[in-house]
């Protein structure tokens, strides 16, 4: 019991600590590729500290939804993060829910964020919410199908079980194509859900083009800090999911100090590599036209579906 609590605390700390680093790393990679020096890697931490110290300004036209949303978003994404293995394969919270719980915990945060975007009554928030609704409704099926394709190969919908089995090389997969299809689908979903190029541009100042940024446009102070941190957490959750489901190498399958040490190191290296890859992608592509985003997410859906089909055809 005590060990479980300690491990939960450890995983929470790791997620909270790593997420600003990943955000900073993407920015750094982009800057270097553009021949800029770029902000220091500790800048996202400094930004959070600064925002937590600032007094929030809240529009008088808002309701309780506006002030409650940052907490709900932050809590739901953090809980989702505890369902995904990071440095130990059997995450201590794995009793709390499976992959479907994970998907809908993330959706809960998105739902409240959309409400909050509408709540302040500004035109930009409303536009952001309506665009987020398009994106979210298309990423959800793609994500579920992708995860199902993997769940089928491992015979479980519990992420920990999937990762643990893969890490121990039980049920050796003879043909990786369902996995590869699901990986591609999940990566596209991750880009869309975390508001990266080519779906959204986290670096823009143009209100009219924003999706995620438009919804949080009215936030300031600690509320903004929570939302920024939650956005970083979401990125960390997706990268953990991709890294550990498809490449669980190095993850601690037993609870020994040495295994945990290696697991932590492997986790940071794997997520950092994925973050750097996102940074490279952001430099290579322009943002899609808003109505082309549906095509991209359609591709993700088809890939996930193909993964499922491959599984059945290959088995028989």
């Amino acid at each position, binding site marked *: 019991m005590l060990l479980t609590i300690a491990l939960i605390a450890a995983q929470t700390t790791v997620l909270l600590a790593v997420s600003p680093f990943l955000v900073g790393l993407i920015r750094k990679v982009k800057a270097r590729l*553009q021949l800029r020096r770029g902000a220091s890697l500790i800048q996202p931490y400094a930004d959070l500290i600064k925002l937590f110290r600032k007094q929030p300004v809240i529009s008088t036209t808002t309701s309780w939804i506006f002030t409650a949303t940052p907490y709900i978003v932050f809590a739901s994404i953090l809980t989702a993060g505890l369902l995904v293995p990071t440095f130990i394969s059997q995450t201590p919270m794995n009793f709390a829910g499976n992959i479907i719980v994970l998907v809908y915990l993330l959706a809960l945060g998105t739902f409240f964020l959309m409400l909050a975007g509408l709540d302040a009554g500004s035109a930009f928030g409303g536009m952001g919410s309506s665009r987020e609704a398009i994106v979210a409704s298309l990423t959800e099926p793609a994500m579920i199908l992708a995860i199902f394709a993997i769940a089928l190969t491992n015979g479980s919908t519990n992420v920990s079980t999937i990762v643990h089995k893969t890490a121990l090389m039980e049920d050796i997969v003879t043909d990786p194509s369902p996995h590869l299809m699901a990986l591609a689908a999940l990566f596209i979903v991750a880009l869309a859900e975390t508001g990266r190029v080519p779906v959204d541009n986290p670096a823009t100042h143009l209100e009219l083009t924003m999706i995620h940024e438009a919804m949080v446009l009215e936030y300031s102070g600690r509320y903004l800090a929570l939302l920024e941190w939650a956005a970083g957490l979401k990125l960390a959750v997706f990268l953990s999911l991709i890294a550990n489901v498809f490449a669980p190498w190095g993850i601690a399958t037993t609870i020994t100090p040495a295994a945990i040490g290696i697991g932590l190191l492997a986790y940071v290296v794997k997520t950092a590599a994925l973050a750097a890859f996102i940074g490279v992608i952001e430099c290579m592509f322009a943002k899609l036209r808003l109505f082309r985003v549906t095509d991209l997410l359609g591709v993700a859906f088809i890939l996930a579906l193909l993964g499922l089909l491959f599984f059945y055809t290959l088995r028989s």
Partner: protein
Amino acid sequence: MVIMDTNAYDDMLKTAFPAIRANEPVCTKSSHFQVPKNLLPAITHYIHTQPNLRGKLTLLWACDHRPSRDTYGLYYLFTLEASHHWMVLSTELTNTDRLFPSITPHIHAAQWYEREIRDMFGLIPQGHPDLRRLVRHEHWPKGTHPLRKDFPWNCVLGRQQGTYHFPHIEGEGVFEVPVGPIHAGIIEPGHFRFSVAGEPIMHLELRHFWKHRGVEKLFEQQPLTDAVSLAERVSGDTTVGHSLAYCQAVEALLHLDVPRRAKYLRSLFLELERLYNHLGDIGAMCNDTAYALAHAHCGRMKEQIMQLNDRLTGSRFLRGVIQVGGVPRDIENAQLVKIVEELNRIQSDFSEVGAIIFANASLTDRLETTGVLNEQTAWDHAVIGIVGRASGMNCDLRRDRPFAAYDELPVNVALYRYGDVRARLRVRGDEIHESIRLIRDIRRKIPDGPIACQPGSLPNPGDWTLSAVEGWRGEILYAVTAGEGGQIHRCKVRDPSFVNWPAIQWAVLGNIIPDFPLINKSFNLSYAGNDL
């Protein structure tokens, strides 16, 4: 269409309208007619639509002549399509007569000009379909018309309440998105009101003129030879364009003959200004599609040119490089060689970046078919400059009405017909190469000699002239009237932004809201040059 000589145009007009009187032309390649006011709609319609003339409304301005002859003057400038010949029509309104017939119903391009004249002079264009205030926002007290001579320049206005009526589009699911005048980025003030059904734009109305500085009134407080620094500040990114256009007007009034070397140096500065702005624009357009790589590289090249400007002239924005009668500082031939070497390096860099930009599929998908301004709309609005050339308007004053040293520096005009964001990007890309080629040409052809001439005699009060420069955005026009003792009586400033702003309202139709910033960036118009 046949290119005829000047007299033929004049004869055509005189045959069609015997009541008009030919005046002395104010500059080369132009004619000037005194027209009775009631004939204005008919004559302008004739010039605009007659197949051999096809006159494009280039400028429309008013002047308060009441101190000397108790009238207001109205001036219409048309550019004939084939020959780029200028036709000036002028008419006089007596002091008691504040009405003039509007030509907007058949020449769309006149609409902002006539509203501006109504605001600044209190003269009323009869029959104008839209008589809302343009420059004078509603908080200006009733009856204040700043460009009238009896309006003191330093007068502090009170405030009044008033509402501006935006047209409302109604229907299920149609709503309005107001944007600005305060924006999230570092942008000048402008209000954009979109009527949208979901994301597609059904209607856009611009509301500008939030930063009226009284530039034209300030000109009238200055002697002709002193106002160069004011012209430089009309729009900070077009310092050379505006100061050159102003100086050319003053030189024409003072009958100065600018030395050839000074003319070449002026062309050099104008091309350098074009280069840094075009490079910055291409980068900024890529940045608006989140293609940050091209933005970074274009930003670097823009900075290199601005540092070059700084080394050559002591000003990154090329301030103080043009003066009445020439240029204040010479640039040695050895330095010109160095400039060309540096520009050659930048050109090879830009060729690489350009190849990346045009090969990138995701970027091309964003740029193509976005914000199309078709040729007919461009013609109707008399759209000029980069935007015009991307929509098939074959106009470039450097070729059509050569100024500075362009009579000896032939320019290849970049021309595209698609009118989308990509065409506007391509025009800029081509012009960057062309500018660098021109600078090489300048280095080869520049003669030795003096760089400035001495000021001559003062002009007669009432003398006026027109001057035009192809700045990086497009045609910059100055109409300068001399006053008593070498003062400025009237200085009409026309930045190309004033003409091209209304066209954006048409280019965005049917596009989606998140593409607007990109379309706007591809026009990249000046708020300051527009608001004056």
